[in-house]
């Protein structure tokens, strides 16, 4: 009879071991990160434990849902293409065994530097021409912003330890409620 009382503790110990093992690698899913540099769209696909998706299929759709192009990710999980259309794009990643995710690039992001300069109407203000300067700024900005965007995306995706403990709490709570109603019915 003694073991009957001890068993839940033993299993709980197992569960705690799992938590300790689990904390560095959260949530198993695929992620896709896309950014524009110059006129090329770069995408990076990776599993949530950080490994790259090799040979995953990338499909690109416009805002009406028409498929524009399709490709495979390389060894580094990257797939790059020049957007054929300046509309909002939906980039869908299909990895093996039922894993799928997508991200969208808005039309604003696709407007290249040249378009924006023409829109401002201050072309005469510069002797050397605004366009080259604008392009240089854009390029260097892109270079600096990409790591920041990548970091933001990581933060967005990362599950927290709180979610894990919260989930266990929810499960205990739900079964507690079930137990309450089951025993109440008996009375």
């Amino acid at each position, binding site marked *: 009879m003694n073991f009957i009382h*001890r068993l*839940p503790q033993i299993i709980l110990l197992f569960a705690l071991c799992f938590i300790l093992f689990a904390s560095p690698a959260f949530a198993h*899913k695929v992620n896709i990160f896309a950014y524009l540099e110059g006129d090329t769209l770069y995408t990076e696909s990776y599993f949530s434990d950080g490994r790259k998706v*090799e*040979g995953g299929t990338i499909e690109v759709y416009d805002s009406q849902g028409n498929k524009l192009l399709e490709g495979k990710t390389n060894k580094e999980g990257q797939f790059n293409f020049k957007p054929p259309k300046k509309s909002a794009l939906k980039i869908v990643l299909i990895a*093996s065994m*039922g*894993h*799928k995710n997508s991200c969208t690039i808005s039309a604003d992001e696709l407007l290249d530097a040249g378009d924006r300069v023409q829109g401002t109407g201050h072309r005469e203000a510069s002797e050397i021409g605004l366009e080259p300067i604008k392009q240089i700024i854009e390029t260097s900005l892109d270079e600096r912003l990409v790591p920041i965007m990548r970091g933001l995306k990581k933060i967005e995706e990362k599950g927290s330890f709180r979610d894990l403990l919260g989930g266990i709490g929810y499960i205990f709570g739900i*079964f507690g409620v079930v137990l309450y109603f089951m025993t109440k019915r008996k009375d």
Partner: protein
Amino acid sequence: MHISDGVLSAPVVIGGYVATTALAGASLYKLKPEHIPRVAIITSAFFVASLIHIPLRPTSVHLILNGLVGMLLGPVAFISILVGIIFQALLFQHGGITTIGTNALMMGLPAILSWWFFSLIRQMNVSVAGFVGGASGILFGVFILAILLVTTGSEFIGVVRIAILAHLPVMVIEGLICGSVSTFLMKVRPEIIGCKIC
């Protein structure tokens, strides 16, 4: 082994939900108040287990432990796995919301099968029975995954080959876990495994 949103077609998704609801109802019917603490603890272990990754190429795999749930809970395992999967989807975006039904089938049915396998051979050798129970949970899950993915146009044999290869290490590890857990429980409390819950 979790299927994401948008992979499966609507009829498969709805079919998954219908079958899961039926099985969950049957499972709830078997559930008795005195089982609940055990079910709750095993459910949370299952919920957490899928966060343990096994870093092997070409895709990323993780522990599932549906065989262990089946061996410890018997027919009640289905409700345990369903609850675990709902929270994995909600809190970790681990598998989609629309695919909760199909994912529960994919892991819950094999759990019940491994319970059946385990009870069949436990008389001979409990450690071996535990290994077989743990490994078969994954193996059946892979077959169900392949059947589900065939509805999306994938080729059955191709998916099975890739998925079995990817899950081979998981099968071995879970077999070892289940083998040692069942050997241990057989010594300390034999009535809990192979399942007297029903």
